[in-house]
């Protein structure tokens, strides 16, 4: 079964609303999140597939379209569909979330340089006696964490090899989109009138017109017969206000690997697992920042020193992590006509610094074994996808 690549481009503006209600009183303004949430993108894909398959949506909503429901899924279940990849594209090139250890320095002449945090000596803190990330000696005061940014393929390869990426490989959100304030009204469709008091403001996303910016979703599980009948070009309504998006659909090639390929890891201390998509992790049933099934290692005085667990059956010791605030996403459940539950996930770009436990494991071998993969919950939604880099 061949995977299909769906490439979304805006026709006008886009709007993917934050987790706050439209405001019925006073002044309110809703911002858009970026990039589009996978639930929204999959909703558009499912609608296109269902339309093409001739699904009766009224029956579908009533739960009477059994077979179609099984493979199309719904807002909480992807059915037979699987998100294999989900990424931003700039001028045809795939972008990767900026790793959380990147710092940007703005020099006095306005030029910028990137630096990487290093893992320092252990510190007694509320996490335990653990090695916290710290500024490298080469980074001057005033360096700031890189936020809302991506790296190009070249940049992520440099990072994965343990190098500091060139600043030219850093793509910031402002390089891709600008905010465009809009004023909206509530409509009484039955009477064709404006609803009193429902004036609201939104800030739409205007993607830069001089660059080719797209969002790719690679989906497995589309029935063969349907795949053959899908158009190569179509359009969909996407996001909070049903904004138009142009879509190209084509067979997907195997994704290029961002992992450190062909780089010697002989002197590496370990590997870094970087989350490419949000990580849905839990410990004892509760959302957590820690990799699933990793267990704490404590010293005699009860201070946590590290966490031990396995990825792809490789025993590993988690020595440090570098991550921004957890991502909180909600949205709107179109089928149930109610807000989705806001849940937390480990943000893309978050890093886990892992040491081999067995002397037989070399970092180079670990890189080859771990490579790219998936960890944690919601795998079918493309969550928890990771790549690896060398940790020197």
């Amino acid at each position, binding site marked *: 079964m061949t995977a299909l690549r769906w490439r979304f481009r805006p026709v006008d503006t886009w709007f993917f609303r934050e987790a706050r209600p439209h405001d019925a009183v006073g002044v309110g303004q809703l911002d858009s999140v970026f990039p589009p949430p996978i639930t929204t993108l999959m909703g558009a894909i499912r609608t296109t597939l269902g339309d093409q398959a001739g699904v009766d949506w009224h029956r579908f909503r009533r739960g009477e379209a059994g077979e179609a429901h099984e493979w199309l899924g719904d807002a909480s279940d992807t059915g037979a569909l699987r998100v294999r990849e989900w990424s931003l594209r700039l001028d045809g090139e795939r972008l990767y979330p900026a790793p959380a250890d990147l710092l940007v320095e703005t020099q006095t002449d306005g030029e910028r340089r990137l630096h990487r945090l290093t893992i320092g000596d252990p510190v007694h803190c509320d996490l335990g006696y653990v090695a916290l990330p710290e500024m490298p000696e080469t980074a001057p005061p005033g360096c700031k964490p890189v936020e809302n940014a991506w790296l190009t393929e070249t940049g992520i390869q440099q990072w994965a090899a343990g190098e500091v990426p060139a600043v030219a490989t850093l793509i910031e959100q402002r390089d891709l989109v600008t905010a465009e304030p809009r004023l909206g009204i509530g409509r009484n469709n039955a009477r064709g009138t404006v609803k009193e008091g429902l004036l609201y403001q939104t800030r739409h996303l205007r993607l830069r017109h001089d660059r080719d910016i797209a969002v790719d979703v690679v989906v497995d599980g589309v029935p063969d017969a349907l795949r053959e009948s899908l158009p190569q070009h179509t359009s969909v309504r996407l996001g909070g206000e049903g904004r138009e998006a142009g879509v190209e659909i084509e067979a997907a090639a195997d994704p290029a690997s961002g992992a450190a390929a062909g780089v010697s890891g002989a002197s590496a201390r370990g590997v870094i697992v970087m989350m490419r998509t949000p990580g849905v992790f839990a410990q004892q049933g509760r959302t957590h920042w820690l990799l699933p099934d990793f267990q704490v290692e404590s010293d005699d005085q009860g201070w946590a020193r590290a966490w031990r667990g396995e990825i792809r059956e490789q025993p590993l010791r988690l020595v440090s992590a570098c991550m921004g605030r957890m991502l909180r996403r909600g949205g709107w459940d179109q089928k149930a006509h109610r807000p989705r539950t806001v*849940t937390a996930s480990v943000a893309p770009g978050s890093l886990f610094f892992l040491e081999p436990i067995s002397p037989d494991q070399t970092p180079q071998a670990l890189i080859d074994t771990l490579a790219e993969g998936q960890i944690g919950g919601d795998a079918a939604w493309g969550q928890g996808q990771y790549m690896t880099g060398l940790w020197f």
Partner: protein
Amino acid sequence: MSDTDQYFHLTLGPVQGFVAQARRTRDFWAGSFLLSWMASVAILAVQKQGGDIEFPIPDSDFMKAMTGQASPEQLPQQGSVPNRFKAFGAKVGAEFSPAEVVEAMQEAWQTLCDQVWDKDLGPNLDEDQRGLSRSIWDRQIQGFWEVSWCLTQQKEASSLLDRRKNWRSHVQPEEPGVKCMMMEGWQELSGAERPEQKTLDGFWRPLRESLRHGATDLRPGEYLSALGFVKRRFVRHFRDFSASLSNGVTLKGWSLPSQVPSVLYMAAAPWYAQALTRARESQGVREALHHFHDKAEALVDFSETAHPTRTVAEATAALELKPHYAGIDGVVFHPSQLEQGAVRFGDAQGPRDVLSALNDLRRKAELPEPSSFYAMVIMDGDSLGSQMSDPDKQKAISRGLNTFTRTVPEVVREHDGFLVYAGGDDVLAMATVDSAVGMAAALRKTYARIFEEENEGQRPGKKITTSLSGGIEFAHIKTPLTFVLNDAHDLLDGVAKDQTGRDSLAVRVWKPGGCHLQWSQPWDHLQKGFSESDTDQLRDLVARFREREAVSPFTNRFMFRISDLLQRLPASFFASGGQAEQANRHLVSRLLRAELKHSGLDLAGNGERDEEVEALVADLLALATPHRRRVHEDSAQLAATQAFNGDALKLVRFLSTEGMA
């Protein structure tokens, strides 16, 4: 240092996630106050274990008030409550227990929230509803705060909390259902699954009607989470608050005014001060003012009474009016609000009468419509973090910041502002369009003077090198407050500090359609030629434009034509360098001069006026040529960039036409 000494560092958050999530200026103030209060609980818990807070020096009045030991005149009031303890360092003993500090903070927070529940929610909900709402309440109250700490034996370790922040581990709870209108992503307290007005009103209307004190605390159609509800309502019950914590500390509340100036009031304050002043001079204006007061009083209350701006308070006193007339609800000054009639006020005739009286007052006092813009001023010290690791500088820095924090309230009051918080090197204040730039300049001057004095006691090589950068957001009253607050931080960090090189001022103007302009300059460039006076290039130029405008209106036409002209010039026009660039700049100067002469400016053809035009053009170009501050081996130099920022012209126009001074 003894062998057993340790150093404890604590930080509390989310700061922006709590403070800046606000629907009213009062929410904003409440978030800032509660953050200070929580951190003060932590300080008391450290002191209870024998710890000695080293940075920053705690405010003695605030700490006394926390335990009920402050005299009435020492009680921290609005505008002088600093949000200073979002991070601190303390010297503690070998047996010190960080867990006890965190427990004390959670216990105090829980007790304060319980008081709000017991007074406002518990008695007013039926049994079925109470269970659901209480489960939401407990989940949110218990899961909100992120407290991080580090413990070390190294006295000079000053970056531990920064290191800890690189590993964000706090997980906030899952939140289903309809979300709060104030706190993004938190469920509102009715527990409704869908945003159906009938269901929501069924919970919130009876609750709103049953609240004692503060009838306007919840507006119809407004639904809040536990966190939003506590921010909105704790002030009503804080006077009666008392809590005995497990660590033996007894906390006491005190009376806090529940009134904070609205953005509507701040926007109209300069206009109101002018109207009051003119009423002193004219019987007709005075009669129109009294009529306006009568009509306004019938429609609204005096919700701004606690914190009128200084000039309004003084003008009210000079007119021998009762002080509460200085604090009439800001809504009555804005036709755009009054025209909403029954939708906003529940009655159409009242707002119509006020609007009519307002228009009559305007005509008699010969005043334009009040401005729809207010200002948010944000200031932050430069380069202090890197120097805190030097033990020889720590005490002087702590002392300097303590002095600065104590001085800020008076500077803000003097400049017609309302202080939201002042802590360490951070200041956030609301201001009027007229006073914002002057306030920022005065704060920078005060900060510089304080550290100059501190440096007198420092050895060579141990001098503290610091300055104060500022950002001013001029925002339309319809611009959401949370957006303005978040954008203010971006303006300060991204433009004043990174782009302009620190020790700088950055300005943005937000109109309802979006960002109208962005402009920045280093303070030293702004104050070039004005170091001995109480103004700067920007304010001086605005004052001169206003003077000219009063004689012959020209500003609008001139600015539009010039902006249009500059937009048509190629981007490389000012970037050619050398003689070509000089020639191009000269050409622009000539064009500006020609446009100024054709814009309606009354020049009367004499040489004196020609000189005035030359000076206006030269100063406009100086403001519109972006400068960047560059530091090399402890000395800063200013360099003009090869560009021209037309937004400088827009800024002069905005301040000339929106201000009243």
